[in-house]
């Protein structure tokens, strides 16, 4: 009898050791229950993260995705919708692909995160427990920095169209209704902001539409920056060549206030009255990042560990996409959010398996822009992890921009969209 007990004790000791090894391994699936990942935000970052956990996770990870919108609407390609060259349906993708993969997609609003109890709280009162949380919340507009724009009515009269959907259609409608000979003015905030080439692409596509339909009109770019932030040579060539004189670029023109009733942009030294006024306001990481205490750079962005995308402010919480404090020369783009998501997915799987994450991760970026309905240009970059500086740095000698705008690259831009939407959401 005593022998049996001590035998059992011996076995238990060995079993405990095995358990300890597993615990060191941290493999949440060994205990029978799956590791739980909750993802907040179903944009390029969050959707891709959810999808790749199902692709790479070996069925050992339970993935829930909370998104407030019923479907994904792409910001890239949305400037084509404004100019009337695409329908909003063409840039809308459903979450059915993710659902079919077993991702629990919840349409809802996150109200809080309890990082100690590891729970996400939703507006309907429900709670989602997690082992690891991924926050890919996108941006919030800093309306307090632009006088007169704080109300919903003001934001409807003066659209930003910097989150795709209703706002895209609002701006499209205003452009279509504008009289020939009118002025379309676009205000650009200081970098960093979402999609560096986006405002310049928009100016091109609006001009393309106006040239064909309302040729006496004008596009005015009011840029808070000292110079064109992205693809300068290629954009200025289009402005001066293709649209000869129709587009006027003004640097160092930071928007201070808007007189909504008269559609007047009030700048530091000047006032500009427009027929359509499009204000892209200054941006920061979205509200839920602030609520969760994830914002730790300039009261705007979330600093993260580039090996795992884990927040430097809150443990077990990973941040993706435009909300992150960018590494040097890294753009806030949908492409980059998708890349960061795949880095994070691999890291989460390693962490759950008790392994060190990949010590040499790579990220690459391509941003295509249209300079006309058919012609495209690009900027590309490749980034590697620098262990000494603990950040991602561009690989010397890599990346660059197009030699010239071309229809081939316009077609590549459309193909890029089809492929990244499938890679993120199918």
């Amino acid at each position, binding site marked *: 009898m005593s022998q049996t007990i001590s035998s059992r004790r011996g076995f238990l000791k060995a079993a405990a050791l095995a358990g300890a090894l597993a615990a060191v391994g941290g493999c949440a699936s060994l205990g029978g229950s799956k590791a739980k990942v909750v993802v907040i935000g179903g944009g390029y970052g969050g959707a891709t993260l959810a999808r790749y956990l199902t692709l790479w996770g070996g069925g050992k990870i339970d993935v829930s995705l909370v998104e407030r919108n019923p479907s994904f609407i792409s910001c890239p390609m949305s400037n084509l919708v404004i100019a009337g060259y695409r329908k909003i349906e063409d840039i809308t993708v459903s979450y059915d692909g993710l659902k079919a993969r077993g991702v629990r997609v919840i349409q809802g609003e996150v109200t809080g995160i309890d990082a100690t109890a590891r729970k996400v709280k939703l507006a309907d009162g429900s709670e989602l427990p997690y082992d690891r949380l991924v926050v890919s919340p996108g941006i919030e507009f800093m309306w307090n920095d632009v006088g007169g724009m704080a109300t919903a009515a003001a934001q409807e009269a003066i659209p930003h169209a910097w989150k795709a959907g209703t706002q895209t259609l609002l701006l499209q409608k205003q452009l279509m209704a504008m009289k020939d000979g009118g002025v379309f003015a676009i205000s650009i905030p200081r970098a960093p902001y979402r999609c560096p080439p986006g405002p310049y692409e928009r100016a091109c596509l609006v001009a393309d539409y106006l040239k064909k339909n309302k040729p006496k009109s004008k596009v005015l770019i009011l840029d808070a920056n000292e110079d064109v932030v992205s693809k300068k040579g290629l954009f200025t060539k289009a402005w001066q060549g293709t649209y000869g004189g129709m587009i006027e670029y003004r640097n160092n023109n930071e928007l201070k206030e808007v007189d909504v009733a008269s559609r007047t942009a009030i700048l530091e030294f000047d006032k500009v009255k427009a027929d359509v006024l499009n204000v892209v306001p200054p941006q920061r990481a979205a509200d839920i990042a602030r609520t969760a205490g994830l914002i730790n750079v300039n009261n705007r962005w979330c600093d993260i560990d580039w090996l795992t995308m884990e927040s430097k402010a809150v443990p077990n919480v990973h941040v993706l996409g435009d909300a992150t404090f960018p590494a040097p020369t890294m753009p806030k783009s949908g492409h980059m959010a998708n890349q960061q998501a795949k880095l994070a997915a691999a890291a989460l799987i390693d962490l759950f398996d008790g392994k060190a994450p990949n010590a040499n991760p790579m990220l690459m970026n*391509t941003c295509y822009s249209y300079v006309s309905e058919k012609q495209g240009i690009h900027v590309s970059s490749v980034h590697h992890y620098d262990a000494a500086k603990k950040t991602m740095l561009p690989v010397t000698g890599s990346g660059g921009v*197009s030699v010239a705008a071309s229809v081939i*690259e316009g077609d590549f831009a459309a*193909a890029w969209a089809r492929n990244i939407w499938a890679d993120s959401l199918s």
Partner: protein
Amino acid sequence: MKQNTMRLAWRGVLLATAGLLAAAPAFAQTSVARSLAATCANCHGTDGHAKDGMKTLAGKPADEIIKLVSEFRTGQRPATIMHQISKGYTEDQIKMVAEYFAQQPAK
């Protein structure tokens, strides 16, 4: 009896540990290749299965992919963008990516 049980239990632990250790390097290599290849997926599709208008890489022989990328790097083969992107990866990384795509079943 007691010793036998202990020994068996220990053997189980050791086997399990040895198994994990043996499997680790091969798996790590695979997952690194998989992550590298995933940086191509935005344009060339998940695991190299591209949608219309981009080149599918899944199931292509590794040598063919390596040759193509090398020619982009040297400028021997004209490109709109691949000459810029290919220079961001080392030859070893390109080999890993090519071998990963070659292993993916063509659809």
